[in-house]
């Protein structure tokens, strides 16, 4: 494979950015869910 270093760097950086951002959102959601009373977040139900 030609330019393997560039390809690995491009895919790795993209994956790190996107996965990192996704994890950050999930953690923020969990943290904030603890601060908001359940009746104010009842639109987020497991049945949705």
């Amino acid at each position, binding site marked *: 494979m030609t330019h393997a270093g560039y390809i690995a760097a491009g895919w790795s950086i993209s994956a790190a950015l*996107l996965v990192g*951002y996704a994890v950050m959102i999930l953690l923020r*959601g969990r943290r904030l*869910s603890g601060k908001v009373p359940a009746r104010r977040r009842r639109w987020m*139900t497991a049945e949705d």
Partner: protein
Amino acid sequence: MSILLGRSPDRSEPRAAPAHTGSRTTRILGAGVLAGVVGLGLFAFIFSPPDSRPGPEAGTRIGQFDVVRLMYVHVPAAIWTYIALGTCAAASAAYLWRRSAWWDRLAHACAEIGVVLCAVMLLTGMIWGRPVWGTWWEWGDVRLVTTLVLFLTYAGYLALRSVPAAPEARASRAAILGLGGAVLIPIVNRSVEWWENRTLHQQSTLEELRIEDLTLFTLVLGIFVMGLLVLWLVVHRFRVAWLEAEAESAGLQAALAERRAEAAEPVTAGPVAAAEPVTAGAADDGAGSAGP
């Protein structure tokens, strides 16, 4: 869209609320993203051929060779950047028209995701440009510079949102910037045609690559998988924005209730103070804790 993002708390029946932003919809989307990423990886690295075609001289071959595999990330990131930031602009316009928090939160979610995708587009473009163009970055290139301006504009949008202000004022300011910034989207997209002599960038990847069947399929698969990921991110980010607003509101209400409770409490006076009239100087020494 509201079905995906969630119902308004005022319209739904009370039900158990999980301590996270996930739901059945997001789990299905997430499973689709994971399966799509595996499939994309297989096609991008194993099944699709390198970009190579006969050169002008006999026995030579030209093309991007294996570095074309970066296009399966770069092009989907570019397309979904335009869509995410375009949706931010549309939601901003809807907010200015309807003044609904729902549109404001959707605009916020799309802007943040658009900025992340724009960063992916810029970085993969730079990494691709080094072996193909021989340079990481060219300041005179209109496509590169307009894309950077687009990124900075919406990064500024996110910074503006973090400035402390009343929620309505903050949403209005952000909506104006979110809507105005969208002018850059067609400029970035069309820059390679409008200023074709001032860019290294090819006009259209889909046209310039002289795409083989499997290359085209992999590119379309990448666009589809990135779309699923963006939808998953938008749903979660929208719900986080909702929770942020609720937490801010709950914090404000708690502070107000505390202040009211303080104000309602009678000022207790000690035996000495009860026996003596309170002077102006004594009040300044702490007796006035009841607040305004």
